[in-house]
């Protein structure tokens, strides 16, 4: 029904546009005075009045509809039991809605529920009708108002243009709203989490086993349980272990690739090799995860076992290696740009002194390009830390503190997914822990990016 109403509003708006334009044309031919704006601006004038406020009203009603319905329908239940839990409320509401749609989950339906179902149907219909009446009358009345206001001295262009400017501005605010939303949602749950688990336990604790909290009824949680279950240090260690392995692959390969493409490759080779390497960045991470889990992990295990190591089937090495491959293009294309931007005169100076190409690269170009290269490494690290699917599919789930690359290791992102996948129970410290992990991740990646930008900004030498 929402879609139909929106279509109706848009139709009114389109109608308003033509009426407005028509009136402007009439005014122009009838009056001797000059009309300030072009005809179609009068059309837009009415259309804006017709569409924008009514859409906002519609959104507002839809936003509050759920709340109103809940309060009204559940009023009897709340009278009986004033301390009804939020989860019970949701259950009741779901039962009522199901019953109203003719789905019977229970054989016996209490009279209270039957009453509530009637109430539910009644209020839903009432709100629907009211929405139509209110929204359509807002649209109609305001377009009428706008129509009356169109006179020869009305500068509708100014109005339309300032409206557009406000619209553009609002769109650019979405970025800020997203950031605020992220920070708010992460902080809100994290603070709740830290009210139950001390922050020091979270940051420095050695034991991560949130599922233990899950098993027990969350009603009688032992504080000792909470303290021992949420030590995230093994996760941090695992994350850095895997990121480290990834960087061990990505830095040498990426940097050497960049050097080759920038300094040695013929333009022809460069033209087709660069896009192929950038394909690596465009492949969805879930594909890498699949490849890591099904192809690379068994190879790593067999190789390791032949060499006499005990390798777990979900080794940090396999996940880290594939992640490193994924990151190669991030290192190579950024470094490539930086190396290319070193002025030609430095190269020529070096050659003039008799240096070979590799000597020039190692002793002149790399030092000159170092800040940018370090910046690209840092960005790549932040990628590696935030990467999710490869580690979810190929790294382990059990948290243990290890620096052995053949062992299974788990990461921050893996644990967020493990905790939140499927059905979550809200208000449990376990779920909140995932948000605390998310906040940690957010802060760390933000810091890394910030440092990378600062390094590039501060230490890049300007040659011209």
């Amino acid at each position, binding site marked *: 029904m929402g879609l139909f109403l929106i279509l109706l509003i848009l139709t009114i708006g389109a109608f308003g546009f033509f009426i407005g334009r028509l009136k402007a044309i009439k005014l122009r031919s009838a009056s001797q005075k000059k009309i300030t704006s072009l005809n179609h601006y009068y059309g837009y004038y009415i259309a804006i009045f017709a569409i924008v406020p009514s859409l906002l009203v519609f959104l507002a009603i839809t*936003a509050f509809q*759920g709340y109103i319905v809940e309060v009204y329908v559940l009023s009897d239940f709340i009278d009986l039991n004033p301390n009804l839990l939020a989860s019970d409320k949701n259950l009741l509401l779901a039962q009522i809605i199901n019953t109203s749609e003719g789905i019977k989950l229970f054989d016996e339906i209490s009279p209270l529920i039957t009453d509530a179902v009637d109430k539910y149907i009644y209020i839903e219909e009432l709100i629907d009708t009211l929405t139509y009446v209110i929204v359509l009358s807002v649209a109609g009345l305001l377009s009428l108002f706008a129509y009356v206001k169109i006179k020869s001295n009305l500068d509708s*262009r100014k109005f339309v243009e300032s409206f*557009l*400017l406000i619209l*553009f501005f609002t*769109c*650019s605010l*979405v*970025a*800020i709203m*997203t*950031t605020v939303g*992220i920070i708010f*949602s*992460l902080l809100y749950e994290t603070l709740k989490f830290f009210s139950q688990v001390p922050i020091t336990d979270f940051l420095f604790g050695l034991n991560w086993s949130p599922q233990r909290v899950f098993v027990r009824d969350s009603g009688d949680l032992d504080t000792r349980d909470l303290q021992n279950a949420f030590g995230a240090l093994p996760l941090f260690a695992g994350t850095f272990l895997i990121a480290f392995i990834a960087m061990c692959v990505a830095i040498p*390969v990426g940097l*050497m*690739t960049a050097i*080759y493409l920038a300094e040695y490759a013929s333009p022809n080779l460069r033209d087709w*090799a660069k896009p*192929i*390497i950038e*394909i*690596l960045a*465009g*492949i*969805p991470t*879930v*594909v890498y*995860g*699949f*490849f890591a889990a*099904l*192809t690379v992990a068994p190879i790593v295990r067999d190789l390791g076992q032949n060499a006499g190591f005990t390798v777990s089937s979900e080794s940090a090495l396999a996940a880290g290696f594939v992640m490193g*491959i994924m990151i*190669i293009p991030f290192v190579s294309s950024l470094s490539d740009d930086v190396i290319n931007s070193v002025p030609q005169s430095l190269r020529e100076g070096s050659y003039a002194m008799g240096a*070979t*190409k*590799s*000597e020039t690269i*190692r002793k002149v170009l790399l030092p000159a390009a170092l800040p940018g290269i370090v910046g690209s490494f840092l960005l790549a690290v*932040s990628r590696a830390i*935030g990467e*999710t*699917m490869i580690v*979810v*599919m190929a790294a382990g789930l059990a948290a243990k503190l290890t620096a052995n690359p053949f062992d299974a290791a788990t990461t921050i*992102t893996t644990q967020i*997914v493990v905790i*939140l*996948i*499927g059905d*979550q129970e809200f208000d449990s410290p376990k779920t909140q822990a995932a*948000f605390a992990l*998310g906040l940690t*991740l957010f802060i760390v*990646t*933000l810091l890394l*990016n910030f440092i990378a930008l600062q390094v590039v900004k501060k230490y890049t030498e300007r040659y011209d």
Partner: protein
Amino acid sequence: MFDASANLKKRLKSERRFQIFCITAISFALIFVLILFLNIFSSGYSAFYKTTIAIDVDYSQVIEDTTQFAAMSDDEINKLDLFRFSKKSIYSLFPDIEDRKEKKLLIRIFSIEYEDEIKQFLIKNKENIKKIETVYLTASDDVDQVRKGNYPRDLPEERRRIKDIQLEYYDILENNGRVKYVFNIPFLTRGDSREPELAGVGGSIVGSFLTIITVLILSFPIGILAAVYLQEFAKSNRFTDFIEININNLAAVPSIVFGLLGLGIILNVFGLPRSTPLVGGIVLSLMTLPTIIIATRASLRAVPPSIREGALAVGATKMQAVMHHVVPLAMPGALTGTIIGLAQALGETAPLLLIGMVAFVVDVPSSPLDASASLPVQVYLWAESAERGYVEKTSATIMLLLGFLILLNLTAVLIRRKFETKW
């Protein structure tokens, strides 16, 4: 005395060594791309085919006069109980089998929906059903994998999912020319299933499509208008700087954090329905917005000032100059950025896991408000399943996903080639 030639030799050697390192690095990267693609394609292409086995169905045992089927509606046929009849039809392949256990094993050669397949054949051909018809039934996953050579036959029986006697039946059927290897259309049209041979990606293709359309509808206008504001209208002050820093930061935030945002705000505060392409689309649009804004701003910046000044000179307002002259010229760049953003969104998995788009969905979704999966999530789901049949299905899904991504990126390249103006 200083021996210059020896020193030079050493230096040239190190030069060559350095070059070899470089070439090794770049070939490593290139070879890896090749291995990845070969690996996926070689294990995935067979999922586009399936094994079917012909059985003779005597429809006259259902209704003596088979012309009467033509008068029945599809619904009526669907309601017929053909379970025992279907079983009997399968038993008729080997009339000698008496043992109940062996009969059961024979049935297991076929996929569990044999009754439905026999009915569907009836519905499709009800106008002229002959007394005895040859119906091709989907083989079970185990048989299918044997046919495709993915199951080694020489394993000892207890380590195989398929029994010796079943292999025997299958070989006899194959020698009788009853086995047919056909293009697996249901794989592209059906939803997920617990049986690998019946599972399809149709549901997740539609789910991905609905998600991407939502992303397009939300992020394209918002992204472009935001970019126009920031590039053309915003005065440079602290607040504008703040917005810009925000956009650049958002571009670097790990995708899973957007999933937490979707879970914490969009699902729990706004109360939108879980597991739906609508919510997935909203989350992914927030993620792709920075990409679109940054690309659009770059192409707006590339439009030379003379265009704006020309428009202003003939009396256009600033808004008219921008909307009528600058934005249309920047459109190819904006479109390219949008398509690249869409490609990112199409391949994204992690945020969708958190907003519940991992549900096991059998039905093909019909609106953005239906629970559904998406292609990358389907890859994740099937990759976690143990059955052999899902491995080739996963690879095939990846092939489709990569195909769509290549298509999107090619479109972007074509748009850039065709419409890009160098000033």
